[in-house]
């Protein structure tokens, strides 16, 4: 049932795309792989869960709350862990990012424990609908719909708004952007806020999809989304969207073809393949050294 698998793949892939966007935008602007991005996604899932179970928010409000929380979290992480290292070597910032990542997942382990937690059944009524012979759950529709909406909004911000244009200018040429009167530090904060909020939405959606929120969920999802960003071409926003979707579909198809025990390996096999064959990814440009 090809259509069925395709839709399953797109739903899963949308969540990868949402996370991958944060990797690619941050890389585009400061050439840093933000290793803590997966943990921001995890934090988003926990905040969403908290808002639904404790404060009885509906999923949409919970998602909005998680997005705002992670926006602030992303900005603060950049401020304290990356900005002081801006002029140091890339490696220092990368090590700092790995440190933040370990710190956050350990903190989550201490606060929430090792067991995965699920959303209550009432959080979102899941029903199956038949479309063209394929069984689709309302949850999958929610995931695809919300992701599409967020990505459209992102595309609008980046292409049409003043701050979005400044973001593109800064990612092309940091110093020249400053010569335009652009406060590049503010643009970098804004980029972290955008990327982190998308990851938070992804966290809530993934939490619902697998009905599991756990301290280490950021690791695997983060690595896969990173692979998606590389597949699409790191630094390219449309690339991250495409890479996420392709990876989701590939994973679901692989499982459907009987390789379910290799489920998590599929993304990494693709990552290695891309790095060997076309390191700039599908939509990426030549990798330029930034000054």
């Amino acid at each position, binding site marked *: 049932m090809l259509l069925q698998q395709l839709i399953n793949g797109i739903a899963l892939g949308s969540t990868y795309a949402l996370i991958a966007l944060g990797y690619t935008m941050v890389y585009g602007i400061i050439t840093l792989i933000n290793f803590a991005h997966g943990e921001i996604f995890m934090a988003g899932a926990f905040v969403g869960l908290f808002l639904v179970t404790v404060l009885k928010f509906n999923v949409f409000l919970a998602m909005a709350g998680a997005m705002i929380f992670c926006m602030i979290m992303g900005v603060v992480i950049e401020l304290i862990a990356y900005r002081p290292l801006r002029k140091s070597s890339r490696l220092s910032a990368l090590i700092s990012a790995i440190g933040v990542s370990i710190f956050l997942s350990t903190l989550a382990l201490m606060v929430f424990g090792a067991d995965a937690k699920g959303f209550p059944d009432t959080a979102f009524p899941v029903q199956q609908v038949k479309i063209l012979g394929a069984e689709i759950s309302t949850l999958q529709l929610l995931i695809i719909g919300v992701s599409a909406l967020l990505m459209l909004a992102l595309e609008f911000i980046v292409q049409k708004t003043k701050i979005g244009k400044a973001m593109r200018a800064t990612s092309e*040429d940091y110093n020249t952007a*400053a010569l335009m*009167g*652009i406060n590049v530090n503010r643009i970098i904060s804004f980029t972290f806020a955008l990327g982190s909020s998308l990851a938070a939405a992804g966290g809530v959606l993934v939490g619902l999809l697998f009905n599991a929120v756990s301290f280490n969920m950021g690791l695997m999802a983060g690595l896969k989304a990173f692979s998606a960003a590389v597949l699409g071409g790191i630094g390219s926003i449309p690339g991250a969207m495409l890479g996420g979707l392709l990876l989701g579909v590939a994973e679901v198809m692989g499982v459907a073809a009987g390789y379910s025990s290799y489920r998590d390996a599929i993304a990494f096999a693709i990552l290695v393949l891309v790095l060997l064959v076309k390191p700039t990814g599908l939509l990426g440009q030549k990798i330029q050294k930034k000054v």
Partner: protein
Amino acid sequence: MLIVENLSVNYKAIKALVNLSCRVEQGEIVALIGANGAGKTTTLNSISGIVPASAGRVVFEGEEITKTLPHLIVKKGISQVPEGRRVFAKMSVLENLEMGAYIRSDTKGIAQEMERIFHLFPRLAERKKQLAKTLSGGEQQMLAMGRALMSQPRLLLLDEPSMGLAPMLVEKIFEIIQEINKTGTTIMLVEQNAHMALSIANRAYVLETGQVVLEGEAKELAENPEVRKAYLGE
């Protein structure tokens, strides 16, 4: 208008500027000439706040700006056309100009400014929607200049506007620089093309290994035998 006092800049172990002093008066065109690596770009970037000074100070309209951040220096009225144009290649001509007007929010004024720039560079008007990377070298230079003018600077820093352009185009660009100056913008011009630079400048400084070795009226420098030998190819 601009006073640079005993400015020193180091890139790690390299001393790029050593105790450099110069000044620019309101309404002038001041040229900075010198060989490759003399420190011309470094001087402009230090004024713009892109590279930090290790000693000395920069004063603009009576206010010290030595440690001011680059984007705030633009707000104070200094704009730079960087060496090698550095247009935003993946953005359209229009978007490049919008970036030049980043510090402004008066929509009407920005639109008027853009009209003025299209009047100055009709080529840009024809290519509004094109990506900057599809422009020729000369058109990119025009775009970089137009972009810098969008913020209505009182002082315009130009870094080698003639670089890589055909002689005809160089003349055209220099005419436009004079035109910009006549409408009230003070100009600091860095050039390797000393001949052209001295022909339009009021005063000039000659730089060698990060130091000013000669300064004076542009006309006098153009007559100076040393300058003629070293920079005018005689």
